[in-house]
């Protein structure tokens, strides 16, 4: 919107190499005051490196960073912050045990007589957070807030530092829809006050909604830069992927579920799962070759359902049966033995073992089966590992590569491989494409489709409505821990799903009226 062309931050011919990788090659970028500038690209395109150079985490090998037309060379994040460059990271990077106010003002606490003025700090924090749509007692530990509220605190913190440039690295990935709206209002206000915003996101709707310009990166280079209005989605995506736009269409809504039969035998049957405060009488059948989407807003109990099915969450009552055989013991180990595999929501926390190699991560769950008299057969391992690397097209330099060096998409594939080598009958996927780029996303979605075609029963949890609608044969909708709807066939539409999620009375033939009548 603004075209004052007052360039705040300029990167000029910046290059950066790491041992074995050329992360950035001759990258130039201009951020103008008052603009929201989208930075997009697949994983490994160099976005993170670019951000880290702008914020002083890394130093550029070549090229120049200029802030307000003066060359700068930050050697640590503090210098960048002091100069007015703030960053909001994808995962909330605050101190969970400290209070909200202390997090907000860490390092810049208001002081009186040399001592931190706690009362004023809490007062200021409360007022400041209200502007961001959060009304909490700022003396509470940050940990006690919901993730979205925590993200808002980190944004408030970033803005607090008289920022000239705010870099947002996928700020909405952990936010609810309502919180996203608040964030957008905040972004608009920041931009209007002359702050330059670099906005990294994979969500197209967001980019078109709030960004003025876009810079596309691929393989460490800038491949294009344009006003948002002058480029359509397809052009943008094809630029990011460096592929012909027509390739992408295949993963569109039309392709799925065609030419694939859902067989009639129920593989995974869940009946009457109850978890106190969380789930109420959740029943769910998944047939052979079927992808059942699990819809619901944040906190509706989607992840909890998956976790309760595999026994990672203790259910007070309810039954789970695989191929008609009831699971007597309820534990993740028993679930695995029965043929249920779950890909958890948080790759870092629950899945990937970062210090281990790709090979070790893949065979981890299968080790008991690969071993003979306590010894693991290496040849058998290699066979399996190379099969899955090939089958899932995991991009690795070698199976010995550390899994932490892979991009998010490839890490997710490694996890998928881990469970697939157990030959599961049912696969529970919790946000399988969160935080991974468009290309890898399409690949993972394609894989899910193939796996279902091979006869797997799949439960798909996704906050991405498009993914849910396009990727599922049927969508079970949860609200406040209860199954409130079951969309099948032609009823699987955007509109119906939205209505079900939002508890729109016009379709509530099966649902009890929700408590919040807003």
């Amino acid at each position, binding site marked *: 919107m603004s075209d004052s062309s007052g360039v705040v931050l300029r990167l000029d011919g910046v290059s950066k190499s790491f041992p074995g990788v050329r992360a950035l090659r001759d990258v130039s970028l201009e951020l103008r005051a008052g603009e929201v500038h989208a930075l997009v690209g697949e994983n490994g395109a160099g976005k993170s490196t670019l951000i880290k150079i702008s914020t002083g*985490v890394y130093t550029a090998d070549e090229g120049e960073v200029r802030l307000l037309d003066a060359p700068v060379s930050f050697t640590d*994040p*503090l210098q960048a*912050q*002091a100069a007015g460059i703030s*960053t909001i*990271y994808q995962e909330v*990077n*605050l*101190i*969970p*045990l*400290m209070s909200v106010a*202390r997090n907000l003002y*860490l*390092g810049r*606490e208001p*002081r009186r007589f*040399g*001592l*931190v003025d*706690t009362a004023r700090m809490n007062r200021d924090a409360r007022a400041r957070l209200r502007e961001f*749509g*959060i*009304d*909490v*007692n700022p003396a509470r530990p940050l*940990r*006690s*807030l*919901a*993730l*979205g*509220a925590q993200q808002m605190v980190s944004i408030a*913190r970033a803005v607090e530092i008289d920022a000239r440039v705010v870099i947002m690295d996928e700020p909405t990935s952990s936010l*609810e829809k*309502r*919180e996203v709206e608040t964030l957008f209002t905040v972004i608009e206000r920041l931009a209007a006050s002359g702050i330059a915003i670099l906005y990294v996101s994979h969500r197209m709707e967001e980019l078109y909604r709030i960004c003025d310009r876009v810079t596309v990166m691929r393989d460490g280079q800038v491949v294009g830069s344009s006003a948002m209005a002058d480029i359509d989605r397809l052009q943008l995506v094809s630029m990011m992927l460096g592929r012909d736009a027509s390739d992408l269409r295949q993963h569109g809504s039309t392709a799925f579920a065609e030419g694939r039969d859902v067989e009639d035998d129920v593989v995974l049957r869940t009946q009457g799962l109850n978890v106190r405060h969380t789930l109420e009488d959740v029943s769910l059948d998944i047939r052979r070759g079927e992808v059942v989407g699990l819809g619901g807003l*944040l*906190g509706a109990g989607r992840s909890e359902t998956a976790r309760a099915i595999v026994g990672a969450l203790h259910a007070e009552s309810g039954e789970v049966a695989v191929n008609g055989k009831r699971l007597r013991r309820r534990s993740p180990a028993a679930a695995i033995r029965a043929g249920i595999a779950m890909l958890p929501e948080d790759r870092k926390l629950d899945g990937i073992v970062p210090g281990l190699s790709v090979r070790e991560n893949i065979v981890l769950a299968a080790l008991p089966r690969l071993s003979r008299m306590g010894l693991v057969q290496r040849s058998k391992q290699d066979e399996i590992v190379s099969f899955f690397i090939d089958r899932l097209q995991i991009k690795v330099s070698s199976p010995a590569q550390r899994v932490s060096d892979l991009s998010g998409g490839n890490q997710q594939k490694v996890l998928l491989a881990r469970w697939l080598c157990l030959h599961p009958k049912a696969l529970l996927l919790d946000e399988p494409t969160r935080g991974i780029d468009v290309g890898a996303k399409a690949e993972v979605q394609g894989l899910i489709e193939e796996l279902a075609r091979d006869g797997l029963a799949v439960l798909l949890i996704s906050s991405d409505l498009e993914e849910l609608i396009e990727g599922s044969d049927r969508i079970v909708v949860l609200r406040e821990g209860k199954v409130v709807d079951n969309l099948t066939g032609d009823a699987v539409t955007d509109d119906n799903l939205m209505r079900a999620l939002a508890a729109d009375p016009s379709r509530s033939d099966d649902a009890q009226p929700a408590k919040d009548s807003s």
Partner: protein
Amino acid sequence: MSSQTTAPAEDVAGGVTETPRERVFALLQRQGGPVVLVLVVLLASIFSSGFASSGNFSTILVGNAYISLLALAETFVIISGGIDLSVGSMFALGGVLAAWGMNHGGSGVAVLLPIAVGLVVGVVQGSLIAYARLAPFIVTLAGLLFARGLLQAISNEGSTTYLVPGHSVFAFLGDGTWRPILTAVALFAIAAVVLVRTRFGQALFAIGGSENAALLMGVRVRRTKVFVYMLSGTLAAVAGMLNASRLQSGVTNIGVGYELTAIAAVVIGGTILTGGSGSIYGTAAGVLLLAVIQNLIGVHLSQYGSSASDLVNGAFLAVVVVLQSFLARRRAL
């Protein structure tokens, strides 16, 4: 939006993640030390004749005043997510250096030498931990051995004990009943203010809570770490120096295992061993609790000697640590 006191949980999507039960556990973990201390003192006052006398109280307080400073030093380090195993040795070294200094230059040297050595050892340890990224456990274990070795060298393998003349200025410094108590109280009070009301204190909590996040939030992590080990080393040496003044001698075989008692007191006081949370007053309660238990056992179970008090203290520590890890696990779920 209208009401402030009742609305928060509604306004923040998802709301509070702490259940009442968790809150009770958290309270128990944080306030358990002080509460148990009060209970033990009350019960002992009622049932143990001779416990609740001003003479016995001052014995407990004076006897633990300087040792409590080790727990104070350890509190800072543990909150920052580290550990300092060298405080016991530094305590002994501080005392020997002070007595040696007294004999080789007078009261001024006796005071300044331990401070200087404690500072230097602390800075070296802190730098190795912060800049060379070595594990605090190993670095301070080396510090423990180094300080003990230096002490042995000065005292000719412990055979020479330097004495402090009773009439000297230095001997006056740490002697008496009120001076040790007031010194400890003052230092604890200052420490509490530093921890809660200064940016340095906040930085310690931040680093202990999440070092990476602290770094990204602009905390000077390495500098703060060096500073906290410097503080710890200096405080331990000062405690030893004051103790030597009180004993009027640089006792060479003192301080063995004190670091572990200090750590126990800190943890019993509710400071989380992995860092990021804790309090000075908790540590004070932890120190006093251990001291009171030791005193009681000394009076009533003297036939069992120190083994009984170690047993009780060990059991208490185990309960606190179990509670802590239980809490941590519940939160991780």
